[in-house]
């Protein structure tokens, strides 16, 4: 919201309204994220293998915490890389 209220970007946003992001886990009504579910976790780590921030994916804070936890667990079990090149 605060981004839209800035005077400099107001006009820009008027012509190019940003697509509303939403939490995909909330939509599917997920409570727990399993670290073994690698296919889902892979969507949230770009090439470099870092956990993508909330501002790019639109995940809610509750699920972002669960996601980060799951990704870190998957890294320990060598399901996901710590660093990818």
């Amino acid at each position, binding site marked *: 919201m605060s981004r839209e209220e800035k005077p400099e970007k107001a006009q820009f946003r008027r012509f190019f309204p940003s697509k*509303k992001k939403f939490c995909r886990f909330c939509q599917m009504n997920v409570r727990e994220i399993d670290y*073994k579910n690698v296919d889902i976790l892979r969507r949230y780590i770009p090439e470099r293998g870092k956990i993508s921030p909330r501002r790019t994916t639109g995940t809610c804070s509750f699920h972002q915490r669960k996601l980060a936890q799951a990704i870190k667990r998957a890294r320990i*079990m*060598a399901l996901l*890389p*710590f660093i990818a090149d």
Partner: protein
Amino acid sequence: MRQYETGVILAPNLSEEEIDAQIKQMEEVITSLQGNLRREERWGKRKLAYPIKKFTDGYYLFLHYESGANVPAELERRFKQSDQVLRYMTVKKETTTSLRKKKKTEKEVETEERAPEAKETEEAQAEKEVGRPEVREKGKERRKEDKEKEKEKSKEVV
């Protein structure tokens, strides 16, 4: 008694008999310490995301069980000693009771209790107290509508 989930990566150069023997040992540990083995997942050989002990592959195994705290401790003590286990991790499974719902019900109870007391002391305050729940309900309705709209939007996108 708690729900645990232990993931184990065994070395890829073991024969099937050795793997079976390892798994049998784990099961025996669980059952002998009064644990209850719920489920056993065998993924088989799988490529590791990064090499461990110079192995690029690993045999994945996951055990789901219900037991006291002594079982995972004993299992991990054994894993540490053996060379055949590359990596292990035990995760506690939380029983799913959503905190948010609990808090909500508590709050509702509090407001109900407060409202009559306020009536007795001051009428003006009582009106406010009574007025609030309606506002809240309206807010809830609005949120619901918003959510439905978002869902429709997302469906369109898909």
